[in-house]
């Protein structure tokens, strides 16, 4: 057992416990905080899989931006603590779906084969040039059109949000 498996076990325990807390917490703010912790654990896994760029992006985008938005929404809508509501139907449906997904994951893990890397990107190339540089180059050459389309989509969303907010004022 080397140091990375010990570390993986520790982080995995935290990830599973915090993911459970997301669905079991009564207070929505506490659920959101537990979700932030889960994202942190995921970022740690990326870092351990030798993908530090993905780890940083995971924290910046999910923990830093999306979850701040979620917490804001919870706070401003003032969603209160969920008190003793019965959810028997949802609970049953959720458990069925959960069990099915678990079985599928088990099937993938036991029956699946690990494929070898496909394409020109090899470990040596990543080590010599760096993850960030490679992703940047590919994004602005081969995938330039999808990149631009995505940015236009985001711009449209921003303009739409501003227009909706303005209309309410007048």
């Amino acid at each position, binding site marked *: 057992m080397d*140091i990375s498996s010990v570390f993986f076990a520790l982080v995995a325990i935290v990830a599973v416990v915090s993911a459970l807390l997301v669905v079991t917490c009564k207070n929505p703010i506490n659920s959101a905080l537990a979700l932030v912790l889960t994202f942190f654990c995921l970022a740690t896994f990326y870092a351990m899989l030798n993908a530090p760029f993905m780890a940083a992006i995971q924290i910046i985008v999910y923990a830093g931006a999306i979850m701040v938005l979620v917490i804001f929404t919870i706070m401003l809508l003032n969603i209160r603590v969920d008190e003793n509501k019965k959810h028997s139907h949802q609970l049953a449906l959720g458990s069925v779906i959960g069990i099915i997904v678990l079985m599928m994951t088990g099937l993938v893990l036991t029956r699946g084969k690990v494929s070898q890397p496909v394409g020109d990107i090899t470990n040596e190339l990543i080590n010599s040039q760096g993850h960030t540089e490679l992703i940047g180059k590919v994004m602005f050459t081969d995938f330039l059109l999808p990149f631009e389309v995505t940015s236009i989509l985001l711009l449209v969303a921003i303009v739409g949000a501003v227009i909706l907010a303005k209309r309410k004022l007048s």
Partner: protein
Amino acid sequence: MGIEILGLPLYYYIAMVAKVLIAFVFVLLTVAYATYAERKIIGFMQVRIGPNRTGPMGLLQPIADGLKLFFKEEIIPADSSKFAFLIAPLIALIPAFITFAVIPFGDTIKIFGYDVPLQIVGYYDSGVGKVVDMNIGVLYVLAMSSLGVYGIVLAGWASNSKYSLIGGLRSSAQMISYELAAGLAIVPVFMLVGSLSLQEIIHAQVGMRWFIWNSPMTFIAGMIFYVATLAEVNRTPFDLPEAETELVSGFCTEYSSMKYAMFFMAEYANMVTVSAVMVTLFLGGWDGPFVGSLPWLSPLYFIAKVYFLMFMAMWIRATVPRYRYDQLMAIGWKVMLPSALVVIVITAVAGYFGFYTFSGLFGY
């Protein structure tokens, strides 16, 4: 290569623990004495004396303050959200400290025959047999600074008090807007260095080719970054979240005892951290005269530069009045953000025509 534990050499562990302890103690001591220094410096600038009763020249004042806060009664408001209320000071404090993990506070130093880079994060490459820097230092800094907003928002909301809520909302709006300007102001540095690693960024500046004067683009970017970080850590003239005259004490109105002290520590620890980031990106990091022949000087240069920037922040606080809220937002979105974008475009165009830095131009 000596004794190995779990696949890593023993000296790696010893060096790692030593570096973590040194960096942590350094930040904690700086935080404690920054409060004293701030009161003393502002006192002198306003022709007052400042704290002078506890110990010689008031030097024991931070310890007295800490003890006093420690023994104060801990009040948790009855209608607050307990868990969020308790955890908010922790969330505010932790990102401020862990940002220090990637900041190189000195050159690689030989200790007992081992090369020890003075930077906490770094993985041991068994192929090369030494510690290598991770290539994402700057992204890590940005990620951690984007987490700082949680502590303040949670504190403001969980207190269930109108002053706290307004303070928390103001501060989150301010931090999110100025984070953009600060993040964009770093981009010209990447474009000139071609790497996200903080070690590489410093190596590009070694030999007094600091970015603050080595190119007009990075000079402007550095100015934008400094002002934006002042706003991000809620320092005067951008200290609206805790504007005493309007909001009592902003997001930490309802906090008392050590939890209040933790917010206070978080503010100063953030100040140390952003000063260190500014030093690393624009002021040459640990670079200085004779550092090539005497690598032991490099941590001293680093500390001196960090303290100089913290002195500047205190100086600004003693001089400049607070902005109004709408002015603050207008400056952030209409001045700082566009000028950061313009600097990026100019850097790109100048780089296309072969002008990178003065040292590249004149070849000194």
